[in-house]
Each structure stands twice: as C-alpha cells, then as structure tokens.
C-alpha cells in the first residue's frame, strides 16, 4: 500500500511531457523520446497516437474510446471493492518506466529473485522478467523463425508495426470482435493500447511450431495495455503462447489487455496464456474469439499471479459445426482473487463447446468461476459441457462457482454442467506421507495431479516450470 501512496503523492506533480525523462525506444528505425505523465486526458490519448504516427482512423478510434471509457460505469460485479480501489490518476498510460528505461536489478523484490533462483531461470531471462531488460531472446533465433514464417506468408509482428505495415488488414478486423463499448476496460485499452501481437495466417497454412511471445520480446508484447489480434484464414492453423510461468514483476498496478481472435472457416486457433503477475497487479483482460463454419478455437488460460484477475475468455460460434473450448486454471493464494471463467455463445447449428475450469485456493485466497453458456434460437443440435473443479488447500480459502445458462433452443440441444469441490484432506496426506513422502511434497503431488488436465496441454517446458512453481508454493517458499 505504501508504494501506491507514494505514487499518488508524486502524481500531484502534474508535469507534462517534458518533465520526466522516461525514454521509450521502438525497436524499429524510428526512435522516439517521449516523456510521460500519470493520469489520462484526451490530450494524452491524442499524443499517443501522434507519436506513433498513426493513421487518422486510429486517432479517432482512440479518442472515441476514451470518451466511452469516461462514460462507462465500473462493472458492479466481480471484485467490486478491488475495482473501485484502482486509482486511474496514478497510472502511466504510455511509455512506462519498464519500457526503454531500465530498472535496476536491486529494485526487484527479494522474494521474486528467490523464486527465479528456485525455478532455475537463466540470468538473462530473470532480468527480463524482473523488468530490468527489455529483451533476452537472441536476435538470431528470432530472425530465423521470422524468416520461416515469412516464407509461409504468415504475418507475426507486434501490433504497432502491423498498423504501419499491414494497415488494410488491421483496419478491416481491429475491434470488430470487442468494440470499445464492450466494457470500461476494453474502452480504456482501446484508447491507450500499445504493443501486443498481430498474427495473420493465410489459407491452408499450418504453422507447425507454437508462436511464442518470447520470440519477439523486443517488440514489447508484455505491456500494460497490449492489444492482440489473430486471424486464421480458411483451413489454417496456429498456436500462440503468451506469458510465462515465472513471476513477472511489474510496478504497474493495472494490466488491461484486449485479445481478439478470428477463426475463418475450417481453421484452428489455440491461444495459451500463463499469467503470473506480481501480486500488486489488477489484471483485467477482455478476450474473445469468433469461430466460423467448422472452425475451432481453444483458450488455454492459466492465472497464477496478480492481486485481482477478472478474465472470461469467450468464443462466439457463428458457423455451423464450429467448436469452442476453454481450459483454465486459477491459483489464488494470500490476498488474491481470481475471478475467471468462460463464455461460449452458440449462434449456429451443430456447434459444440467444452469448458474445464480448475481452481486452487490457499491461505485465504478466493477463486470464482463465472461462466455463461448461451444457445441462440435455431442453433439446433448444439452441445456443451462445463466442468468446474475446485480444490481448497485449507479452511481459510474460498471457492465460488457461478454458472449461467441461457438456452433459447431445445431441438437437439444438450448442455451439461458438473461441479466438484474438494480439499486436500488429512487422510490423503497421511496415506502419502506413510510412504515416506514429506507432507509438502505430497501436497505438491496432489495439486500437480489436480491441474494435470491443464498442464498436459502445455508445451513441455511450460508444464515442467508450472509444476515446479506449484511445488514451491506448497513449500511456502514464495512470497
């Protein structure tokens, strides 16, 4: 809380752009030096657009979004208390210190450094995750992958570059899935977005390797207000991975991203996220996908960190035979609230969906599953199954399941919901410890088993790291 107080005090010193000297360097030819201030005004929004040299339509879009942001009320559900405690005036909306301005390693909290050590993360990567350096992945790797993709006709770049170099595609699809009016935080992101990924996969193209944000870290994907847009053309396929299991230290108290996915006929998008923000961050993310005929969209979503997360990846099944899937885990430890879930909208016949949500709570943490299955009239033969499993590690923690269903069609429609709540009980631990395994290790095994349906969907290195992280959490070795 002290940090927040002091930033508030500083923010009163409302110097304008020339006062503070945080540098922001784009990785491309243009080098901007831009000085930030806290808080948000229309002028700042216009300046963001101006400095990025954006086309007029984007400037107008930002300004309009800013107006919507001001008008939109705060959501009156989820973590209301947490939401209302966000001080919008104390936030840097652009060119934050973690950008070009490098933080000193000494500023990174000890507990986070210890976790890096225990996870065995290479030093260069530690510095990136700690916000000390803006990049760590070798340029060579990045370039060779980019060349392979270019040969396939795949566009994989940061959003700012996409707007400059592929403005026709961006203009056609940008904000078509999540309009600024969707919610207050989508409006905020639309006004001040920066960074994020843009991917376009041409028809009949299977991108065999998962595209990872790691490879283009130098393009600043891990911003506060990143904006991601992925389009798979007919019968193409891509897997995108963002985030990482290791704690990501941020001095920013608000992370509010918007992610839009468009899966054309017969195409497949899998979007995997592991979020482990430091526990001062409000992580309020809007993620939505549209799946056309026989397309498939899968959200694999892991929320480990942050103070409050509110995130409900959605899939709109708009074409016959489309399939949507959300697989998520949430871990809520001391002082954390994970309010996560999923939303699937069946808007065409023969569409199918499945949701598997796993939540873990410990030390008074709170997790909420909030989900909606909507079946529109005439979406005959739609099938959906929802499964929510909660595992509580002690009696102080809470877990809530809020499944909503709106079913307008009956013909051939089947919607199933199943929820379980369990505890790591003493008898289970007694059994395992009686075989020579310490209690902490036994707990870790139970938990890793519980999240196994999630981890088995992750690439190996992520799965291993996630399991190690959970093991450390159990030993109370973190934070």
């Amino acid at each position: 809380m002290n940090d927040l107080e002091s930033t508030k005090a500083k923010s009163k010193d409302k110097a304008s752009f020339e006062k503070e000297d945080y540098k922001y360097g784009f990785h491309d030819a243009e080098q901007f030096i831009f000085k930030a201030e806290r808080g948000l005004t229309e002028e700042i929004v216009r300046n963001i657009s101006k400095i990025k040299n954006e086309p007029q339509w984007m400037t107008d879009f930002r300004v309009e979004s800013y107006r919507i942001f001001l008008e939109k009320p705060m959501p009156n559900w989820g973590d209301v208390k947490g939401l209302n405690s966000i001080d919008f005036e104390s936030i840097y909306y652009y060119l934050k210190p973690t950008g070009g301005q490098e933080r000193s390693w000494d500023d990174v909290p000890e507990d986070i450094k210890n976790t890096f050590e225990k996870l065995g993360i290479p030093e260069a990567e530690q510095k990136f995750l700690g916000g000390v350096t803006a990049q760590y992945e070798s340029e060579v790797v990045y370039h060779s992958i980019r060349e392979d993709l270019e040969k396939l006709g795949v566009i994989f770049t940061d959003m700012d570059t996409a707007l400059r170099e592929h403005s026709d595609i961006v203009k056609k699809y940008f904000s078509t899935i999540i309009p600024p009016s969707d919610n207050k935080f989508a409006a905020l992101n639309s006004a001040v977005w920066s960074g994020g990924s843009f991917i376009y996969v041409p028809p009949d193209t299977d991108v065999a390797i998962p595209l990872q944000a790691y490879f283009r870290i130098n393009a600043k994907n891990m911003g506060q207000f990143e904006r991601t847009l992925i389009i798979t053309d007919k019968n193409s396929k891509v897997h995108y991975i963002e985030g990482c299991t290791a704690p990501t230290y941020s001095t920013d108290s608000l992370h509010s991203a918007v992610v839009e996915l468009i899966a054309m006929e017969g195409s497949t998008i899998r979007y995997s996220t592991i979020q482990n923000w430091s526990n001062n961050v409000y992580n309020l993310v809007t993620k939505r996908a549209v799946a056309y005929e026989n397309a498939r969209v899968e959200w694999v979503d892991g929320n480990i960190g942050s103070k409050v997360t509110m995130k409900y990846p959605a899939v709109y099944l708009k074409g016959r035979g489309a399939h949507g899937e959300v697989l998520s885990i949430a871990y809520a430890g001391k002082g954390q609230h994970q309010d996560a879930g999923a939303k699937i909208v069946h808007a065409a016949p023969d569409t199918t969906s499945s949701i598997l949500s796993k939540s873990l709570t410990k030390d008074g943490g709170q997790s909420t599953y909030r989900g909606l299955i909507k079946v529109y009239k005439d979406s005959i033969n739609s099938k959906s199954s929802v499964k929510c499993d909660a595992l509580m590690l002690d009696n102080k923690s809470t877990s809530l399941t809020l499944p909503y269903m709106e079913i307008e069609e009956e013909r051939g429609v089947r919607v199933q919901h199943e929820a379980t709540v369990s505890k790591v009980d003493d008898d289970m631990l007694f059994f395992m410890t009686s075989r020579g395994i310490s209690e902490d290790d036994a707990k870790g095994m139970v938990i890793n088993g519980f999240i196994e349906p999630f981890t088995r969907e992750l690439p190996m290195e992520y799965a291993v790291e996630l399991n190690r992280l959970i093991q450390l959490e159990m030993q109370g070795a973190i934070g």
Partner: protein
Amino acid sequence: MTNETLLLDIENLHAQYVNPHNQNEKINILNGINLKIYKGKKHAIMGPNGSGKSTLSSVIMGHPHYQITQGDIRYYNQQTSKMESITGLLPHERAKKGIFMSFQNPVSVPGLPVTQFLRASLQNIRGKDITVKDFRKELKSNMEALQMNPDLMKRYLNEGFSGGEKKRMEILQLSLLQPRIAILDEIDSGLDIDALRQVSEGINRLVDNERAFILITHYKRLLDYIAPDSVHIIAEGKIIKEGGPELVDILESTGYEEIVKEAKLAS
C-alpha cells in the same frame, strides 16, 4: 519369547481421536494398550468392530487426527541397538525408519501417475535417487510376482482401481519398500478367494527372520494363508487376551462376545 529381539514396544498406550474441525471434540479410543512386536514374527491382532484395531495402526504410523495422552511407542534403533520413542516423529519419518502400514481404503489421487508416486516413495525410503531404468526393472519384477496387470502403471494412483487392484497396489508397495515392520490393516477385506490367495502369497514371500508383521483382521481366513506366531485380541481399546495360533480357532468357535465377557470377569 525372552531371547527374541524386540522391534516395537507399545506400553500403556492411551490415545484419543481429535476432531480436526473442532479441537475440543475428543474421543478416547485406546485405553492402555500393551503390545510387544518381535523381529521375524507375525502378530495377528483381532477384535470386534470399533475395538480400536485400526486406530492402533494409525497411531503407530502417526495419523495427525490422533493424540497420545499416555504411554509410549518405542522402536528398535539399529544404529544404537536401543529402543527409542517414535511418537514425536512425522509419518514420513516413521516410514523412513522402516515402518509400513497398508490401508483398508487406500486413497486415490487423480492426475498423479502411479509410477511417479512409487518412484518418489522408493527414493525417499532409500534416501537416494533411483534411475528410471532401474526403477522400471524393479517394478516389473515385483508386479510380475503379484500377477498384476502392467496397464495399471499407466494410470493415476488408485484412480478407478477395483478393490482388489488397490489391495494389490498396497502389497506391491510393501514389496518395493521392504519395511522392517509391516502393519497390514484388513488387507483381506473386499478380496475374493483368488485375490486373497495371491495377496497372501505376496506377503508370505516377504516373511523372513528380520521382518515383523502385524496382521489386523476380523476373520480367520487370512490367517489360514498366513500363519501367525502370536495372536492378540483387542476390545474397548485394550489387549484383553494374548496367545498362540490356537486362539484363532477358539475365537472362531466362541465369538468375540464370549472372550470379552471372560476377560471382564477375570479383571
């Protein structure tokens, strides 16, 4: 029995169950157990439902829901050749000292691969790393001896196992871990005749001059396969009668009620 080596000495053991949700709710279950377990011997503990048989094994292993209020459990320390109290040790520490307990209802852990659990257990008990290759080899021979379906190893710990498969898993762990004392808590329950025979054979293969067994059972039929050296009858949290294998037959003909009555009269 005087020239035999004492392995476990339970003396005037009083223990109560403490409700984990309400620490004030306590129920006395063991009311002064005296029991001596000798190296190389098979001890049968018999008694009616609710007599404290299972509690006794849980207390020896260190279940957190039981509290010892009086008495002691002492265990032979090979290094010092002395009997030392184990009541201050956690369950996994007792396991590392060579105490094993099989469960009436082994728990299942969804998502935890059987092989991962077994290898972790073995490495902890032996106090050293075991390569995957060596582990597989050892596992395979032990499973074959117990006529276990190799596909069980592709599953999660006890998840979806039949009653018989779970019991075999317990005996598999017993044979892998090679404890000095094995407490088998109603290992015969829920087994059909064939399974009982296979499980008993598995146990008998482990019988030697070093290892002690505590066989907890209601029924004679297990003891037809595994002949006990001594029999201890427990009722109302006390050992009320001790003797040789002949006690099993007496019990079978008279029933518990009669023996409990006799013991009460005698005291």
